[in-house]
């Protein structure tokens, strides 16, 4: 029973990513969107939160913010809106951390 966790807030502005990342179970998927994409950046204070998690990030939100893929942590999937839909379909439930 895998769950898709959506985070749309910057990890420096809200505790959403902190809570989501610690509540996720094995097999769960995290998708970072909007200001949540800042959580995927390497050499950052928030980087340690994502260790060992299955993480995807929405490409159009990265591009809007001028964050290129070389700035991201290793092992993160960059997806488009179609990929977003695929994740919603592939998981049993969606938990949106608003």
């Amino acid at each position, binding site marked *: 029973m895998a769950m898709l966790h959506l985070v749309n807030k*910057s990890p420096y*502005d809200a505790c959403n990513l902190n809570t989501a990342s610690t509540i996720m179970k094995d097999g769960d998927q995290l998708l970072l969107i909007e200001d949540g994409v800042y959580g995927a950046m390497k050499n950052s204070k928030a980087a340690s939160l994502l260790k060992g998690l299955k993480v995807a990030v929405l490409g159009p939100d990265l*591009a809007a913010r001028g964050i290129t893929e070389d700035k991201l942590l290793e092992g993160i999937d960059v997806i488009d809106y179609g990929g977003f839909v695929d994740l919603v379909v592939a998981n049993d439930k969606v938990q949106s951390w608003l």
Partner: protein
Amino acid sequence: MSETKKFMYVNRKAPYGTIYAWESLEVVLIGAAFEQDVSLAFLDDGVFQLTKGQNTAGIGMKNFSPTYAALGDYEVNKIYVDRESLEERGLTLDDLQHLVWEDEDEDYAEKDSIRLVTRAEMADVLAEQDVLFNF
């Protein structure tokens, strides 16, 4: 008595996720038109406003980041960026737009607008202002 006041706009939010960054930019340009002594501070998530290469085509929002490059033409050339905020977000000065202004007293020499400051220096800059606007 001098009519000019020192105005500082304190920017602490990321662009696009909320409207704060864009609203700040609009107010800054209005303030500049009234010939006040304008400074901008970028700290916390506000440093994300200045990243170069922003492309909003995929999210259907207006890319207002080119406007920062026009600030120099409005004599808004004191842009203070908090070093600590940059570093904890995995950013360096190279990740930001190169903002410049032309000094008409020195034959229009091009000078950097961004001043990278420590938290202590930022405190001093804040302390010397007459009016603070927060976004």
